[in-house]
């Protein structure tokens, strides 16, 4: 079964919870053909816990990375646009977190912020290079870029708030 579902960049925990619910109902996440399109395989209902990590491909030693997860009982399901999907059966005594302290969890959100920041740059330039449009104060495309820009700002604020929440005494 293929299912369309939209999650914003700051909703990784909601996405994890949704995937777990699906597995509880017998639909196990099997991969994505593109962002927002989730593939599921039907089977026996299982309590899989899903965890999402964010890490850019080009900066990592993928083999070593995946081996660490495998060794600690995590199954690698998918990678999509820098997001790595892992799952593990929820059993008593199992460690169900991939990040076991606030500092490293904050690191994940900082990497995400850096990526969003880089994405925002061309948008910024596009906006100012489209000045003096032939009609009106802002062209349609400028309005569109502007709205996209606002969305980015919103995403960044949401992620910053999350980081703040994770900080401890």
């Amino acid at each position, binding site marked *: 079964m293929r299912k369309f579902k939209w999650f914003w960049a700051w909703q990784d925990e909601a996405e994890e919870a949704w995937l777990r619910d699906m597995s509880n109902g017998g639909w196990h996440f099997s991969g994505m053909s593109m962002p927002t399109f989730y593939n599921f395989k039907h089977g026996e209902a299982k309590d899989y816990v899903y*965890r999402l*990590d964010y890490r850019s491909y080009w900066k*990592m030693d993928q*083999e*070593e*990375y995946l*081996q*660490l*997860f495998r*060794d*600690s009982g*995590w199954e690698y399901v998918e990678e999509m646009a820098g997001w790595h999907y892992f799952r593990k059966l929820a059993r008593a005594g199992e*460690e169900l*977190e*991939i*990040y*076991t*302290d606030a*500092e*490293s*969890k904050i*690191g*994940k959100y900082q990497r995400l912020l850096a990526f969003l920041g880089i994405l925002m740059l061309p948008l910024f330039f596009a906006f100012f290079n489209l000045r003096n449009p032939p009609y009106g104060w802002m062209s349609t495309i400028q309005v569109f870029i502007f709205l996209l820009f606002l969305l980015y700002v919103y995403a960044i604020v949401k992620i910053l708030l999350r980081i703040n929440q994770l900080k401890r005494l």
Partner: protein
Amino acid sequence: MMTEKEANKYLPLTEATYYIMLSLIEPLHGYGVMQKVEQISRGTVKVGPGTLYGAFSTLEKEKLILKIKEEDRRKSYVLTPKGKQVLLSQIERLEIMTGNGMGVKQSLG
């Protein structure tokens, strides 16, 4: 040799990083580190794979640990002389912290 000031730049280590470095006094691969940390901390500290991968990358970049061999895709690390010095500085700080804590422990009931 590194000066004390240079070593202090890395301090204080997080609890997880401290235990990871402690366990790398001898060569060990990732999963070995996870098990050892849990064991020597008597279960008070667990290191998940996301946390460990990040710690390995940072420590290796700062040359506090060194990749020494690879077996079945598992890479082993060990402390460098610089890493040992940073760890030593951390331990000395912890001794002061514990000493201060001991001083007031009884009056806390």
